[in-house]
């Protein structure tokens, strides 16, 4: 078994109202100096050894992310 991480982020040109709301809250909470926040999704998959990179990419591109509005990155990490 291997652990695979998929990070999904809104594309830079796509409005991210949730990230903006977090960014706007920070100064109110007394945290200064944060100029921008983007909010995305982080998936951790436990994957059998025979699942290849092409399959993982297909999972990310067709299901975990919507490539119209989101970028994605797949990483294998030490479990």
């Amino acid at each position: 078994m291997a652990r695979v991480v998929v990070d999904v982020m809104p594309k830079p040109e796509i409005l991210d109202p949730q990230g903006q709301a977090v960014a706007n809250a920070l100064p109110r909470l007394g945290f200064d100096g944060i100029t921008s926040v983007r909010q995305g999704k982080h998936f951790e998959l436990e994957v059998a050894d025979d699942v290849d990179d092409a399959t993982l990419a297909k999972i990310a591109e067709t299901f975990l992310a919507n490539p119209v509005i989101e970028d994605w990155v797949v990483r294998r990490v030490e479990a």
Partner: protein
Amino acid sequence: MRVGVITFPGTLDDVDAERAVRYAGGEAVKLWHADHDLKDVDAVIVPGGFSYGDYLRCGAIARFAPVMQEVVDAAKKGMPVLGICNGFQILCEAHLLPGALIRNHKLHFVCRDQWLKVENNATAWTTRYDQGAEILVPLKSGEGGYQADQSTLDELEGEGRVVFRYVGENPNGSRNNIAGITSANGRVVGLMPHPEHAIDALTGPTDDGLGMFLSLVDSVVKA
């Protein structure tokens, strides 16, 4: 004429969509998400709600439902398909329509009666309207902001494929005030507002939405 209305787990507006079909003189046929069967219908409505709880992204899981595979195949052969609200999101996820819907720009769920301008009265679902007509129908959604890259927007605008546009203040941050769009062949239409809730002044703000269902019945009768 038989009009299929899909029910997913979490669908809310299938009953109103079926009622709208009957008001327009059609026969409403219930379609179930898990069936590979369109029951010989002439058109399909993908109604609003929260399909499969809308986990991951709105419409992302519903897109892979067995019945949606059939809808995609039928739409590619020219069957009229209407996606309302969550149905619009599902049609975008299924790549029957371009673009995507994201969280409203002010983060609030918007629930109000909304004026729309009819920008294209040549689709299978809009021939009963005058070009440029303004209609009042309910809008109720938290993720109704229409997004697409600039080249897609230019293509939609250039080909007249924006079907409905919000009138007045933009309620959700949709690019170009887009409320609804159509496929290149004018058979598939998706919109965030709810025409099926505005078919009788007794139960809705107006009966302005009924024209979409009457248009469909007209189009199939002519064909």
